[in-house]
């Protein structure tokens, strides 16, 4: 993603002091970055639960983790661990995206 900012000019900032305007193109880039990140994480979300745990579990069950068939393990344990990780990864990466586009809520 390019870091360039497109000042669209025209309108001065409105609202209470401390408010700032961001251009429409910058907003679109920010949103696109968010959607891309979301898409990747939701794909992982789908693969570990619906993929590993349901659709392809027979294939995965040929392997095992400890004493459990792998597909069965994903359906009852693994998917849940990945879900937790996904949310914290999203939270951290999204914060970086927001800071980059100056739309974070660190100041409220």
């Amino acid at each position, binding site marked *: 993603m390019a870091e360039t900012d497109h000042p*669209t*000019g*025209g*309108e001065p*900032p*409105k*609202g209470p002091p*401390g*408010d*700032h*305007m*961001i*251009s*429409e193109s910058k*907003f679109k880039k*920010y*949103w696109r970055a*968010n959607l891309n990140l*979301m898409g990747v*994480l*939701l794909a992982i*979300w789908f693969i570990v*639960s*619906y993929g590993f*745990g*349901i*659709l392809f579990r027979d294939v995965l*069950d040929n392997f*095992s*983790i*400890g*004493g*459990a*068939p792998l597909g*069965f*393990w994903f*359906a*009852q*344990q693994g*998917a*849940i*661990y990945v*879900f*937790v990780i*996904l*949310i*914290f990864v*999203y*939270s951290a990466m*999204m*914060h970086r995206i*927001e800071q980059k586009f*100056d*739309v*974070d*809520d*660190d*100041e*409220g």
Partner: protein
Amino acid sequence: MEATVLGLPSTLFWTAFFVIGTFGLYIGIAVWARAASTDDFYVAGHDVHPVFNGMATAADWMSAASFLSMAGIVAFSGYDGSVYLMGWTGGYVLLALLLAPYLRKFGKFTVPDFVGDRYYSQAARIVAVICALFISFTYIAGQMRGVGIAFSNFLGVDITIGVIIGAIIVLFYAVLGGMKGITYTQVAQYCVLIFAYTVPAIFLSLSITGTPLPQLGFIGNTADGTPLLVDLDRTLSELGFASYLDGQKSMIDVFAITVALMVGTAGLPHVIIRFFTVPKASDARKSAGWALVFIALLYTTAPAVAVFARSNFIETVNESVYSEEVARGDARASAMGEDATPQWFYNWENTGLLEFTDKNGDGRIQYRADPETNEMTRLDRDIFVLANPEIGGLPGWVIGLVVAGGLAAALSTAAGLLMVISSAVSHDLCRKVLFKNMSDTQELLVARLAAVGAVLVAIYAGINPPGFVAAVVAFAFGLAAASFFPVIFLGIFWKRMNKEGAIAGMLIGLSITAAYIVHFKIGFSSVVLGVVALIIGIVLLIMHFGLKEQGDTRAMLIGSIVFGLIFLGGVFGVLPDFAIGTANQWFLGVSPEGFGAIGMVISFAVSIIVSLATKAPPEDVQNMVEEIRLPSKAAHVSHPGAAPAE
């Protein structure tokens, strides 16, 4: 003989001790966290720390069924139980990524608030209120029933009295503290319930697999070195039971149920409103993460407990020698030799959760799949959690703790639901639709009265559970998946989504899903048709009063009277009785529990088609959607000139 404390059997003493002690704690917290304003009452003043909100969400989320029955459900259904494990956790990913931060930025009190404002429509708001009320009432009736059963089994009081005691406790802190009181009580309840769940599980894991972590014990080996899961699977098939690792449900049904539960979780109003309580949008994401951490602690322990408990049950109870002497309490099982039925079995037999009939008269307990030879005539699934402390050899007070944990789970969920009902009535229905010039003080009073009214209905439903309570999972999650999730998701991610699309999508998704569930779970009898007519009649009546000033709504009034008459006809049996549907008629082989997934797809399709066929939403609404997408309150999108619609 059983040990006694202060003249009571020790288990009963410790149960009463923990139940009364924790109830006192909840009341104390409620007094400390009294709500003074509508902000406090509905959203705990928007200043709950994300980790605390995570704990509160976890307690809110995990009901008596999660606490007491989840391990048992998985123990009896094996792989099929995965739908609940994945379905009730995966929805938090959807919440954190797709809904929670944006709804928090939107910054109002309730889900109908969002629907009404985003779709600039009172009709959409009213439909959302009705959905929220219906989902929450179904759910709360089941919780109250759970509270009553826990009381009657463990403290020897009547179910009715148990329901009333539980309801009064919830009422006390919900009316006094609103969301603020509920939040901090739920934090305490989470601590009680997770401690009560994991401690016995750790000891059970140690005694069966030699490792203290249940999650590792799950993939561990038995004493002779074979993997525990493989061993259980083999033993079960020898006794004629279905395979533990394979499951009975078809793949498409497993898939559909998991979708319905995940999406339904993300669309449940009592879960969503928890994310209104944190200070800002980024905290809503973090909070969803913490909530899932706290939920996962229980949800990854449950399948391990399931394997331990069922293996242990077969190992120690099947073919064991049953002694009448021990059953009468004249002797201890430990004095009966190697093959004797363990002591805990006799203790739980007294509660009626276990029942043994010696069909072949050999004095031993045969546990089989075949109902002809099976001698375990009753084996309640909750026993797999309740008996764990004794199986793990823990002292009597741990059982008391487990009962207190089960009650904490039921009460915290009931309180969260009560909040949705109370805010839907006072804020969405009264303030926003019927009496627009109410003051904050009046609204707060109505909210408290609505909570009292809701508790009275919940008490009644807990004592005389209506038939649909048994179908609570299908109803609550299916309807949330087919109504709230699509309308909120599209409201955030598609600026072009308009009010026509929202109303059509919600109504069609909701009615098709509800009809499918009723047809296969309850059946459209004359009375059921009458009740459906009554609900439609009430909706039309509210629409009439709520939309009066926007145009002529006499047709709605007439409609509501007609449906009222149909209701009377249904109750008196004038309407036809349709037979209940059977499993071989399922659409694509999808069970009623999984139909929410199909309802959701229909709702999405209808919303998008109708939106595209009608005119785009006004520009200020489209700008509002952009604002919702920006976490910062200070950043705004500049629109030089008139921005064209997307």
